[in-house]
């Protein structure tokens, strides 16, 4: 009996200890939109290399901005949040989860129509064009109900009066990168993603760009989450630095902040 009790107690202690460490851990946790996966990973690595003295560690989590906002709302330990649209940043602002005066409109992007490499199709970006006949199969983009790229896509498609004919062909994915992968694999014959995503892949080609007037401006706001660790401020500021700007530009993002 004593033996079992001892085993039980040591199991509990050893389970509890990593949890203690997790809360005491001072890595910087960045929650960023899926389209920022490559660029933020690179900037984070750059920052770590420039700050080896402090042994700074940056942990990233990339997903649809809607999913991230939900996770932060539920108490996920994020320090920095970068959303692909202002809606989800505002969502957290309304819940008083973003530190006052830390919201900065960081980046812009371009919405594009893509097809698998070698399967491009002819399209005129104007109202009345029979887009549904221009390609067979499905069109992949983020879920238009919540994922930013899907929301922008729906706006553009509606502005071009293409929404009703394309809706039956639409596949809504959980984030923009899933949509990209599906087009790469040829499971979708067309997709709507950001230009920066299309640039990363050599298995898709850009068929056309959506006019900026057809959707709300694509803005990536950055913010410090309430309760962020103190060393997160360093990286938060770094994201607006010239070094970071250079990387953003290289990947094709428009830099908004001065």
């Amino acid at each position, binding site marked *: 009996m004593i033996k079992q009790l001892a085993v039980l107690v040591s199991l509990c202690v050893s389970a509890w200890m990593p949890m203690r460490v997790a809360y005491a851990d001072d890595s910087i946790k960045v929650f960023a939109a899926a389209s920022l996966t490559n660029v933020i990973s690179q900037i984070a690595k750059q920052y770590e290399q420039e700050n080896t003295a402090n042994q700074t560690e940056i942990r990233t989590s990339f997903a*649809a901005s*809607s*999913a991230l*906002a*939900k996770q932060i*709302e539920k108490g996920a330990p994020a320090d920095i949040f970068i959303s692909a649209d202002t809606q989800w940043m505002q*969502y957290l602002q309304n819940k008083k989860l973003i530190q006052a005066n830390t919201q900065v409109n960081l980046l812009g992007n371009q919405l594009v129509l893509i097809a698998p490499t070698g399967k491009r199709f002819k399209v005129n970006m104007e109202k009345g064009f029979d887009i549904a006949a221009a390609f067979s*199969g*499905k069109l992949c983009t983020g879920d238009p*109900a*919540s994922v930013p790229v899907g929301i922008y896509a729906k706006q553009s498609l509606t502005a071009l009066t293409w929404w009703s004919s394309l809706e039956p062909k639409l*596949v*809504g*994915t*959980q984030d923009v990168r899933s949509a990209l992968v*599906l087009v790469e*694999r*040829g*499971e979708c014959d067309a997709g709507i993603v950001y230009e920066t995503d299309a640039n990363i892949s050599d298995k898709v080609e850009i068929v056309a760009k959506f006019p900026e007037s057809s959707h709300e401006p694509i803005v990536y706001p950055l913010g410090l989450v309430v309760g962020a660790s103190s060393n997160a401020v360093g990286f938060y500021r770094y994201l607006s630095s010239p070094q970071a700007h250079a990387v953003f530009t290289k990947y094709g993002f428009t830099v908004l902040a001065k």
Partner: protein
Amino acid sequence: MLELVKFTPAELTILLLSLKVAIFCVLVISIPAIATAWLLARKSFYGKSLLDSLVHLPMVLPPVVPGFILLVLLGRQGWIGKYLYEYFGISLAFTWVGAVVASAVMAFPLLVRAARQGIAQVDRQLEIAAQTLGAHPLRVFFTITLPLALPGIITGLILAFSRSLGEFGATITFVGNIEGETRTLPLAIYTYTQVPDGDIPALRLVILSLLLALGALMLSEKLERKANRHIEHQDD
């Protein structure tokens, strides 16, 4: 509190889709699984343990792995899927048929295991006696082996049905999470948890899943008891 039982039409669609996929899954695997179970229970042949291992693989792998393998084989650019698409125009992604395929792969080992157990415990001497009475091996199977193995087979069928209802990893990897086509109960619950204000609908679907699971278990109990009564006292 009341909102927990007010199911929307969208949620009923999800339930019907799940049931459709699960029923077709069981229909598709029944004969191959029972045949495989019989082979493993009654025959020895070169490569038997390899077959046994292959059959059990989906059970021990994380579901996304078989899902990914299905993608590699049957996706539009897959080794087999390529030809399916080129010559027959068949594409399984985003379709409920693809969801059935994913479920079938994951449920197959469960049915084989249960059916094998059921068949193995049928007294072989009875099968031999039947043959001495002039029954061709196929007749022996349908008139002696199958009826006596029924309790095990029924358990297997219900297990397979439940497994299909709960299938997530392979489905979402292979055919995606498409409303009305592949968004079965578990995928729908997951989707709702990813969306703000999705907790109440998620909870509703969770309650539905619990009720279905309970129902399946109780039905399995009842059918097994009935089949056992029919057999009664095999070792007398």
